[in-house]
């Protein structure tokens, strides 16, 4: 079973709009990470947020974490066509020795 579940499964937006996707998980975590996957490629690490952090920023990315609700969100601001990809959340267990991935959100940014 998947630890992380992303919502929505698919998202279509216009270039310049913001894209928001959510991730829920079930058990206690050490950290939560977000990855991007372009079609036919490997995953690329975007950002990591630790369990004692509530918000992190990296460029146009903003990640929040609510451990009381066991949920996280990824916001991509001012989206570009190049942001078209699948986005995955992944949780690291309390032991922190492996990541469990969710099913991903497919994002399409239309020019």
């Amino acid at each position, binding site marked *: 079973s*998947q630890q992380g579940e992303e919502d929505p499964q698919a998202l279509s937006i216009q270039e310049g709009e913001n894209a928001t996707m959510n991730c829920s998980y079930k058990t206690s975590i*050490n950290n939560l*990470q977000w990855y991007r996957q372009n079609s036919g490629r*490997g995953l690329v*690490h975007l950002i*990591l947020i630790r369990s004692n952090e509530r918000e992190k920023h990296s460029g146009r990315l903003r990640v929040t974490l609510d451990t009381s609700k066991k949920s996280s969100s990824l916001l991509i601001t001012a989206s570009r066509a190049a942001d078209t990809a699948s986005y*995955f959340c992944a949780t690291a267990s309390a032991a922190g*020795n492996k990541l469990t991935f*969710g099913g991903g959100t497919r994002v399409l940014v239309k020019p």
Partner: protein
Amino acid sequence: DAGITQSPRHKVTETGTPVTLRCHQTENHRYMYWYRQDPGHGLRLIHYSYGVKDTDKGEVSDGYSVSRSKTEDFLLTLESATSSQTSVYFCAISESPSSVYGYTFGSGTRLTVV
């Protein structure tokens, strides 16, 4: 991807044959992982390694074995390939499980079992 290569990139094999996939890294990272990716399932962990000769099972390890005799190489073997093992296999590396840099993934091996 920089520092990690998977071979082969594509393979077609027959049911019942053994298959070995190779992951090679040049980063000297301690941790290495094998995942499979299937539609509707995201990525699922098969096996991982936390050092030379130190490996452990993931959530979908049945039918797979691994070996790590050197820091740089992590081999995944399908002992007797089945059609349900048709998938895209990804190797990943990390210097520590909680590294701020996360995992670095290879480009994947697309395996088809006929």
